[in-house]
């Protein structure tokens, strides 16, 4: 683990030391067609972005450099941090999510301006535990030029993470601890499959109920609906299982009763959290774990610390 970290950090240091990468020309000049397409999609009616004296929305700066669908091999180029990204992918940090973006505009751009940009890696921090999985935060800067004049800057940070369940594992064998499902509970498991945490709601009196059942004990209605829970929860109680071995689970593992703000409780594993850091009252958020090709289980992760 330390070896891998050292390897990745060395590559990151090298990329940082390499400084500014080559200038890359934007595929299109600043143009009114892309501007109007953009303002229309965004619903931005600012008149300065239209008409003969139109300027480009400054926030479009990154759009001008987007390569688009047809990647011309002749235009392939490598940014300083691409070696780092390749190594992260290879080490299983295949997930990617943007966390921060900061633009600085030196001036507005007019149609017809031809832009170039260059990239400089700033740093890499990690590995950090996050709600998505363990990962590294990679930060870089981009400068855009019109001719030789710098017109805008961007700081961009993303998280490269190891998705919680490696895809290879999910394919291997069926998870042995399967829930029974019938007409009364299918909506819940369908919801999980769709990434929704569903709570049964009585169609008659509106009472929420978990675990669900066929008939409302309050009003006898058999008309059932559901709401989608916010996904927030608080650990109400928990255990750490050590013995005996449980098929499909790697001890020690944590199971908790989670209290939902909607007013029901649910049981699930606490994941992405060192065991000694779990406590009664800990705020958690639902996360979905694919156990095999067919079964997904809702589980609970601590609310992530800010990046």
């Amino acid at each position, binding site marked *: 683990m330390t070896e891998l970290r050292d390897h990745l950090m060395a590559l990151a240091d090298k990329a940082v030391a390499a400084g500014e990468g080559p200038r890359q020309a934007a595929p299109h000049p600043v143009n009114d067609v892309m501007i109007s397409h953009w303002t229309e999609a965004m619903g931005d009616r600012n008149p300065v972005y239209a008409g003969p004296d139109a300027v480009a929305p400054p926030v479009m700066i990154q759009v001008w450099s987007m390569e688009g669908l047809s990647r011309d091999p002749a235009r392939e180029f490598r940014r300083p941090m691409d070696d780092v990204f390749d190594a992260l992918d290879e080490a299983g940090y295949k997930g990617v999510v943007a966390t921060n973006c900061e633009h600085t505009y030196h001036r507005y751009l007019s149609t017809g301006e031809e832009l170039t940009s260059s990239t400089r890696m700033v740093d890499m921090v990690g590995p950090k535990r996050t709600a998505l999985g363990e990962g590294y935060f990679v930060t870089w800067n981009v400068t855009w030029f019109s001719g030789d004049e710098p017109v805008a800057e961007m700081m961009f940070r993303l998280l490269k993470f190891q998705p919680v369940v490696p895809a290879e594992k999910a394919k291997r064998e069926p998870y042995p601890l399967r829930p029974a499902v019938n007409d009364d509970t299918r909506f819940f498991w369908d919801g999980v499959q769709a990434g929704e945490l569903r709570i049964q709601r009585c169609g008659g009196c509106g009472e929420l109920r978990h675990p669900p059942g066929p008939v409302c004990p309050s009003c006898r209605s058999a008309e059932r609906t559901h709401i989608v829970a916010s996904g927030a929860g608080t650990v*109400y109680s928990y255990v750490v299982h050590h013995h005996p071995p449980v098929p499909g689970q790697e001890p020690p593992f944590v199971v908790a009763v989670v209290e939902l703000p909607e007013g029901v409780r649910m049981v699930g594993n606490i994941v992405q959290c060192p065991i000694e850091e779990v406590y009664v009252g800990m705020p958690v958020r639902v996360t979905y774990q694919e156990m095999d090709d067919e079964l997904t289980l809702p589980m609970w992760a601590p609310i992530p610390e800010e990046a």
Partner: protein
Amino acid sequence: MSSLSGRTAVAGIGATEFSKESGRSELHLAAEAVFAALDDAGLSPSDVDGMVTYTQDANDEIAVAREVGIGDLSFFSRVHYGGGAACGTVLHAAMAVATGVAEVVVCYRAFNERSGRRFGQPNTRLGGEPSSQGLEMSWHVPYGLITPAAWVAMFARRYMHQYGVTSEDFGRVAVAMRRHASTNPAAWFHGRPITLADHQASKWIVDPLHLLDCCQESDGAVALVVTTEERARDLRRSPAVITAAAQGSGTGQMMMTSYYRDDMTGLPEMGVVGRKLWKESGLSPSEIQTAIIYDHFTPFVLTQLEELGFCERGEAKDFIRNGGIEIDGHLPVNPHGGQLGEAYIHGMNGIAEAVRQIRGTAVNQVAGVQNVLVTAGTGVPTSGLILSQG
């Protein structure tokens, strides 16, 4: 007083030895225990016309009857929910006897729980069937919450959090039970007491439960003979009169995972049992000289003392710290060593101990016993008894 109180009695008790490997079939164990109980009562198999056991027992009533030579049966019944059935078998027998449905009913429980199917081992099929219980389990089993120790530990954590109870408080229960068992020759842990340090050093099973918070696993069988109080009076042994017997299930009840109701720090189903027992017997906690408190896992011993009114909510820890459950304490609990110390026969061995305490023949006899309260499996729908001097 209900019409049941005082009308029936336990007239005989019998058991096999308690071991880790009986070396014989469960039916064999059942037959031996039934013979022993009938001999104890001074009755013959042909006197028996009713039988009750647990739904979990693998020996059908008719199979046991065939082995033992019991002839016609006019009553047979089974009680559900694991160890929660223990005192329920006596309730069913007493009801049958009091109403004349049967005259002599044998209750039995026999298993090779250590050398055969071990309840503490994960059964991955628990959540597999879309029966009501399978569906109930399906909210827990997929997360590996699959063993009784884990189900109980979930309650224990919340109870600790709510009332400032510690692992040492649970440990004191284990230490007391092993101390009682150490002077009981029938106990598996005869001569083997433990210290609180031993308890704390024992490995985690499911945190917050250590190994020594969990009762042992045993092979063995116990049988009881229930008949009318009147007839029992004429038999070999002095009767242990059934002053009260009750079953209990609470609102929102589940099979050991009632996590979705109230504050998770009580056992409402045992509250139901307690209220019924006190009402039916007309007794109060101060009139109980010793209690058999179901002890498959230590934390629920504390909860039961509170549910039954032997102490206030959250105060069982103080009751135990002050020696309340010791043989010379305020309420001697499980003088035979309980399931932690004597054997795990699903609560049936505790009822036999209660009968011995009433008779005055127990190895760790409590002085001046008039009434004994007995409880059955906890976390599940359960049952209880008060047995009294005739």
